[in-house]
């Protein structure tokens, strides 16, 4: 009797541990799966990829908005900071950063920017850095994550113009020479 009780309690305790681990690991697993998907498509870290307007064939991220142009940079700031610069159009625009657990730890939109183009220096946790210009410094809580630029398509006739602005944005490592 005591042996069976022990087995049941051990199973339940382990089940709780597996449950918590699965739930906690789920967002990170999604991010890892996304980076694998990117690698399959020949995409590298620390490069901004400009996506065309999403369609029913788009499978990169669930529940995409067809009203937005997305640019995505899977970053890795373990070896040094990253510089993100982007031109801001006269429509809703935002630059957001997501940590490796999918937390949105920073966002700035077109109404909040102080300069156009926007210049951001993304640095890793606890890493010393030199700011090569007047870039706004943002610290990522994780070494890896995702930077995402959204541009709102207010009118289908503006897609060409907005795509041109979208493609002026970049995401690249900064040589620190430390």
């Amino acid at each position, binding site marked *: 009797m005591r042996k069976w009780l022990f*087995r049941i309690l*051990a*199973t*339940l*305790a*382990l*089940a*709780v*541990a*597996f*449950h*918590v*681990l*699965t*739930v*906690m690991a*789920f*967002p990170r697993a*999604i991010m890892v799966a996304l980076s694998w998907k990117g690698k399959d498509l020949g995409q590298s870290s620390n490069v901004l990829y400009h996506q065309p307007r*999403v*369609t*029913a*064939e*788009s*499978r990169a*991220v*669930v*529940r*995409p*908005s*067809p*009203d937005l142009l997305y640019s995505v940079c899977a970053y890795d700031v373990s070896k040094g900071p990253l510089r993100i610069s982007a031109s801001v159009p006269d429509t*809703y625009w*935002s630059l*957001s950063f*997501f940590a490796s*657990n*999918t*937390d*949105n*730890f920073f*966002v700035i*939109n077109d*109404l909040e920017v102080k300069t156009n183009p926007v210049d951001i220096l993304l640095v890793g946790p606890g890493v010393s850095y030199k700011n090569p210009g007047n870039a706004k410094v943002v610290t990522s809580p994780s070494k890896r994550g*995702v930077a*995402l630029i959204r541009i*709102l398509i*207010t*009118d289908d006739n503006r897609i060409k113009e907005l795509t041109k602005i979208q493609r002026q944005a970049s995401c690249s490592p900064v040589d620190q020479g430390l």
Partner: protein
Amino acid sequence: MKRKHLFEVLGIVLVALVIGVGSAVWVIESLSKVQTIKDGAWTTHPLVGSVQANMYLRATIARIALFALGRTEALYYNAFTDEEGEPLRPECDYIIEGGDLPARWWSITAYDKDHFLIPNALNRYSYNMKNLRRDEQGRYKIYLSQTPKDLNWLPSATEGTMSLTLRAYNPAPALRENMRNASLPKITKVDCR
């Protein structure tokens, strides 16, 4: 004797793994349909996109709204049912009826059962505050249906279930502080085939 113990331990680990992982997947999937704030058929959570989200909400967001922004930047309402609480089904026609929302920009998008856009010949996946045809009072009706309509036709899925997302970018404080009573559009089932 030792082999017996080994099988016992392996059995316990295996059963625990199935229960633990299975229950986690079930909870994440269930929470994606039952979020905290409910306004008619629409559901959302005030902590979407927030770093204060707990592990369940974070996992749910990763499942259905990866890379969602916080509520000062954008609000996301999802509808998996009509006003009566019945799942949105492709074989039924629905009217989504409402007025403007206090936000810089808002849109309503339809999604297939796999959470991606619904394929259709017009590549019509959403309506927004600018491209909707409205009446004299500024109110609108969107027709979610497999059958083409003259005005504001949003093609629905061909099988399984479907869902809607209402996005409001740069919502006014009145909206983001009052997410439970946001005067969201009503989703009414008209008929089914």
